[in-house]
């Protein structure tokens, strides 16, 4: 019979590390990745030889980037695999590492992500099925269409959607790992260039380079290696879903998030009212409103009001994208999902400094990948 993560042995996050997300430059991906992994090892108090396997989320580097990078930590012969799931690559790497530790195959596993912008050859375009618009509808136009429909349905104005980017710029400004570290006013967010529909540049995430690393371990390993259990939140749920066939013109992004989150709540034994923070796939501003509703944080059409009254700000009922989200922290693709786990862990430990969500105990990470994939994790400190 199929089992969930929660029914297997506990998995905890013991170490986190990042290389700042930044505009693409000359830094080799090896430097990006090693920086994140070394920081995660130091954070956990682990040696490289303690790590038993690696899943590396990457989408744009090309074939087999992991071993040429990690051999510089000392070639210990451990299994390594690249994981590609579009924007959810790092989330899927984390899911795989969790399953491996939960199943007992490994005691300590590294999930990471590293990417530099490169040719994005999306395989779906080669599937042999043509549509009427092709690349005329880029991802930002997909979300511009959803924005238009959302604003019409609930009587929400473009400025209310743009406030997502204003809030997340505030959070990103307090995050030394963020690509955008500037507080932006509503006026700045609404300023041209216009990209598609009501979406302006600052309502679209920047795609740069960076790396994120998360080390997960079993309770056995935590005892054996003398790690700090108090700084190691447990992974309560790991759920991945793909899009189904939804009737008519239904918003499949929101439907998919709703389905995936519901399963994660069930697996974790928590509900939306228990969440202290969420790292949300806010690649485009409207997504945060769609998804907080789909996750059941508020009713349909109430996302903008929830944002306006501060419920999703740091210090509010449930901080959404305290890291700055994809909009401000950035979206280097491979690392993004792993970076969300870094932020949740830092927050649940109470180590997030100026962007700390008070009393954070339970957090949820949510990523969407083209294809259409949704990955949700729930973490909780004891």
């Amino acid at each position, binding site marked *: 019979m199929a089992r969930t993560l929660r029914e297997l042995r506990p998995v905890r996050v013991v170490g986190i590390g990042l290389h700042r997300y930044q505009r693409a430059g000359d830094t080799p991906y090896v430097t990006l990745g090693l920086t994140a992994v070394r920081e995660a090892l130091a954070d956990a108090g682990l040696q490289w030889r303690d790590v038993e396997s690696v899943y590396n989320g990457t989408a744009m580097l090309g074939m087999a980037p992991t071993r040429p990078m990690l051999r510089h930590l000392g070639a210990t012969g451990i299994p390594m695999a690249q994981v590609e799931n579009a924007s959810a690559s790092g989330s899927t790497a984390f899911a795989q590492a969790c399953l491996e530790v939960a199943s007992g195959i490994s005691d300590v596993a590294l999930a990471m992500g590293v990417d530099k912008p490169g040719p994005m050859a999306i395989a779906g375009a080669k599937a*042999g*099925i*043509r*549509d*009427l*618009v*092709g*690349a*005329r*509808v*880029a991802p*930002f*136009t997909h979300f*511009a*269409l*959803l*924005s*238009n*429909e959302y604003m*019409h349905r609930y009587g929400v104005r473009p400025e209310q959607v743009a406030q997502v980017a204003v809030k997340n710029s505030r959070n990103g400004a307090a995050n030394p790992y963020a690509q955008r570290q500037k507080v932006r006013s509503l006026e700045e967010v609404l300023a041209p*260039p*216009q*990209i*598609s*529909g*009501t979406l302006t540049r600052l309502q679209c995430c920047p795609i740069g380079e960076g790396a994120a690393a998360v080390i997960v371990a079993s309770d056995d390993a935590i005892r054996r290696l003398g790690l700090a259990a108090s700084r190691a939140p447990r992974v309560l749920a790991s759920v991945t879903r793909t899009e189904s*066939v939804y009737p*008519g*013109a239904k918003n499949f992004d929101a439907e998919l998030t709703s389905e995936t989150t519901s399963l994660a709540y069930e697996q974790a034994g928590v509900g939306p009212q228990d969440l202290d923070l969420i790292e949300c796939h806010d690649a485009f501003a409207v997504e945060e409103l769609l998804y907080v509703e789909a996750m059941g944080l508020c009713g349909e059409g109430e996302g903008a009001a929830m944002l306006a009254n501060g419920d999703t700000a740091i210090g509010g009922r449930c901080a959404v994208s305290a890291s700055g989200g994809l909009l401000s922290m950035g979206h280097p693709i491979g690392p993004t999902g792993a970076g969300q786990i870094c932020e949740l862990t830092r927050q649940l430990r109470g180590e997030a400094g100026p962007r700390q969500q008070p009393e954070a105990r339970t957090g949820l990470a949510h990523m969407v990948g083209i294809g259409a994939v949704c990955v949700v994790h729930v973490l909780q400190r004891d």
Partner: protein
Amino acid sequence: MPELERQVAHPGLYRASGEQPALIGQHCTGCGHLAFPPNPYGCEACGAQPEALEKRELAGAGELAAFATVHLHMGGGIEAPFTVGVIVLDDGPAVRATLTCPTDDGLAIGDRVSSVLVSQGSDDEGTETVELRFIPHSSGSAEDSRVRGEA
């Protein structure tokens, strides 16, 4: 015959003729699922094999469910700005298509739209390429006539 010298920009997705050209959809004889665009592989609703899938013409008429003026894109055959829409066809499926109006001024969700063939220009041999777009009925009509390259 001028009709013979036209080719469609997206073969297999719509007819190259007619006042309100039909879209080529796909009906699953296994479960009744009606889809656009058609695929040669199998039914995404029930998994029926290609033999169970049959082409079905979908009337080029429907209602606008969403729209956006695009300023940036990587697609071909058009210069920004242009407007794309989600159209729920009267026959059921929702499709995404380019609208005949360059901007969304005057458009509203719920507007009736219908399909129209727009010229994409001709090659050296005089063969004209046409693509299917949607023209709004209730608004933006001043712009429609400008863009609707009559052959």
